[in-house]
């Protein structure tokens, strides 16, 4: 089947596969790192060994996750040279510099302090150790900044001029701070924290359902829940803001994610399709279920459109994205999961308020535990769906409006790309299976609840149990 594709399609498939796989790992590397900083800070303040054990347990998952993230990040960087050499030449002045900054500022910082964070408990004083954890978290999150700045530049290129098939940077700061940058960085940072907390909550819920280390996991569940209560509603707002900027700057993407085929003039109140069956052959939706008058509320928070919305049919076929069904549903999956995570968090807060968040409640209400357990894979799915919206929706452009994907790909022998693509497919499937297997073993084994902190710090004197009080109590 692969042999019937041209090299551009194969390189796109390979980039999609490696990017979708790679994206699974930085989620915890960035989001869980913040959680580890919080835990270690609480430990240093309270000297209660419970928090030390928390930090040590979650760090076990962190390191399993981290290695695969580093390894699967390599093909991302090198593909720009191997498969996308015309893009490298076109945009290298800016795009390459940013990847260089990411390496020097973010990646090295994270890697340089990771060793101390993981293995240095006995080797350095607690303050230095805490500083290392902070640096790992800071480095990982700087990475989000640079990668999202680079990707946003592909979406809304700024800061220079295009001539002779080359981007000439005139102002680096406006290129880095391109129109999409700020909101995209916020949206992605919130996404990594949110999904990481869903993972912590899911593992805690699973363990509580099985009555494993209930005190330990009750604490981690509640801490994750508190963070989620702040992050999940913010994320809905950040997501909305991202959608609005897409409507302003990338009308073809907006039309595709909402499956709008015909122009909607200003002053009207068009319906918004909740679900639809988009049909690219006829340029219309075969069937749809819509909410009357909702589109202008979603885009502009007002009863009528102040600006017209262009439909997909108003562009020539080679100037708008295809795979409309994929974009339409990826967008909806992301939103639905974001809403559900926020709703589940609020519901859990209410239960907590009513005193129903004891370790037994996870046994008594399996549906509640399962809702939390399933929220972890859902978080990942939402992130992947978001990237599909972002990057498939940008097509047919690699640099929006400036460089077509077809012109950005290297001319390579088809066999070469098929070989590397199929190797990645097989290897990544195996890696994912083993990572889940070993992750499950770490979870099944559970935390070491007798582990003593280094240097006898805080042992003995501290209270045996530490729990957050119920907010209503």
């Amino acid at each position, binding site marked *: 089947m692969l042999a019937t594709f041209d090299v551009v399609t194969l390189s796109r498939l390979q980039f999609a596969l490696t990017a979708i796989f790679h994206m699974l790992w930085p989620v915890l590397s960035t989001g869980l790192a913040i959680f580890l900083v919080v835990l270690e800070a609480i430990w240093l303040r309270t000297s209660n060994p419970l928090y030390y054990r928390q930090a040590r347990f979650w760090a076990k998952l962190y390191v399993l996750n981290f290695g695969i993230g580093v390894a699967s990040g390599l093909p991302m960087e090198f593909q720009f040279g191997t498969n996308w050499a015309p893009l490298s030449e076109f945009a290298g002045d800016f795009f390459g510099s940013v990847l260089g900054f990411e390496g020097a500022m973010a*990646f090295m910082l994270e*890697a340089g302090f990771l060793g101390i964070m993981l293995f240095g408990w006995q080797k350095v004083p607690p303050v230095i150790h805490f500083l290392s954890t902070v640096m790992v978290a800071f480095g990982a999150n700087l990475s989000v900044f640079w990668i999202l700045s680079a990707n946003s530049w592909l979406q809304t290129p700024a800061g220079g001029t295009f001539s002779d098939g080359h981007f000439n940077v005139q102002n680096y700061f406006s290129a880095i701070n391109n129109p999409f940058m700020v909101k995209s960085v916020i949206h992605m940072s919130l996404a990594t924290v949110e999904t990481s907390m869903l993972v912590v909550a899911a593992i805690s819920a699973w363990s509580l359902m099985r009555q494993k280390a209930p005190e330990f996991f009750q604490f981690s569940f509640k801490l994750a829940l508190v963070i989620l209560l702040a992050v999940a509603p913010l994320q809905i707002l950040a997501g909305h803001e991202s959608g609005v900027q897409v409507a302003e700057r990338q009308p073809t993407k907006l039309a595709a994610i909402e499956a709008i085929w015909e122009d909607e003039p200003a002053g009207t109140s068009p319906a918004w399709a909740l679900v639809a069956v988009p049909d690219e052959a006829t340029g219309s939706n075969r069937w749809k279920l819509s909410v009357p008058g909702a589109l202008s509320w979603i885009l502009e928070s007002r009863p009528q459109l102040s600006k017209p919305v262009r439909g997909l049919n108003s562009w020539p076929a080679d100037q708008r994205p295809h795979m409309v069904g994929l974009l339409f549903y990826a967008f909806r999956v992301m939103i639905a999961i974001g809403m559900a995570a926020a709703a589940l968090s609020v519901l859990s807060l209410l239960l907590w308020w009513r005193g129903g968040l004891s370790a037994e409640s996870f046994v008594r209400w399996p549906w509640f535990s399962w809702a939390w357990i399933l929220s972890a894979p859902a978080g990942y799915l939402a992130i992947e769906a978001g990237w599909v919206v972002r990057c498939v929706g940008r097509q047919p452009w690699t640099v929006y409006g400036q460089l077509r994907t077809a012109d950005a790909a290297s001319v390579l022998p088809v066999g*070469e790309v098929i070989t590397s693509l199929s190797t990645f497919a097989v290897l990544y499937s195996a890696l994912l299976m083993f990572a889940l297997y070993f992750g499950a073993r770490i979870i099944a084994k559970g935390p070491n609840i007798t582990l003593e902190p280094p240097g006898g710090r805080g042992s003995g004197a501290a209270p045996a149990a530490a729990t957050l009080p119920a907010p209503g109590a």
Partner: protein
Amino acid sequence: MDFLELFMPTVWFVILALFLLLYVILDGFDLGVGILSLTSPGEDQRTILMTSLGNVWDANETWLVLMGGALFGAFPLAYGTILKALYGPIYLMILGLILRAVAFEFRENAINKRPWNLMFGIGSVLAAASQGVCLGTVLAGIPTDAAGHFTGSAWIWVNPSSLLVALTLIQGYVLIGSTYLILKTSGELQRLHVRTARIATATTLMGALAITFTAPFASETLRQRLFDPAFLPFFVVLPLLGVALIVQLFRSLALQQEVWPFVYTVLLFILSFAGLGVMVFPAVIPPSVTIFQASASVTSQVFMLTFIGVLIPIMLFYNIYNYIAFRGKVSAE
């Protein structure tokens, strides 16, 4: 502006060389230890070998990521052309590095460690060999058109001379890995690696000699450079220093010294690297595309330099701190 147009590409050539050198030395001993782990007498010894890398392999590998990013930003044309020409070996290297990294994490959690031990060793061999093939191919020259785009075949990297460089680089990595282990281990394990270091010194030397004598036949440009009177001082001094270092290395191994074998090996790496630099400069895509042709705009290089240049000492500082925090012998748990 003229001055900057000559100066900035040269600065970036030096910075890239520094990143590559740091990578080759630091991940070189990681990969060397990985290759040596295939011959570990038992599981406890292998655990010590891997623990000696636990806190550093990741940061060491990052110098490669940094080199890639900096090459991309400073010489975008070279990034595209070289990586496209080396599609095969680059993917094999990435494959090797992925296998190495995940074997590291999975072995930690596995009860049956054997498959992961094997994967760790094989990944290290594969990464080392692919890096050697890349180096050999670039040295022999990458055919380009006038615009600097690759014009050769997809199999340009399959030839005896790049195979020779690959084999030699593996020996070199085993050498630096052995001397690193002399530093980090004690007792029987240390004696074992004094022996492997001796053997690897001999095999690396043989490889280096073979490369030196066959290089003039492999590439017209290298031949001219080697017999260019202007470069004669380099090609007299460098080999003499090399001989002196090898003698010292053998001596320190015979004396059972702990630190010096590693130091001499690092110096040998630096020396070989300087030799390669002299052979290639100012080409960034040997034989014909120079750093000036492949250069990004001067403003871009200045901008990158202000950001990354400031960070180089900081990166070196905390990397060194990491080594200091974990100084001394490694023990199994």
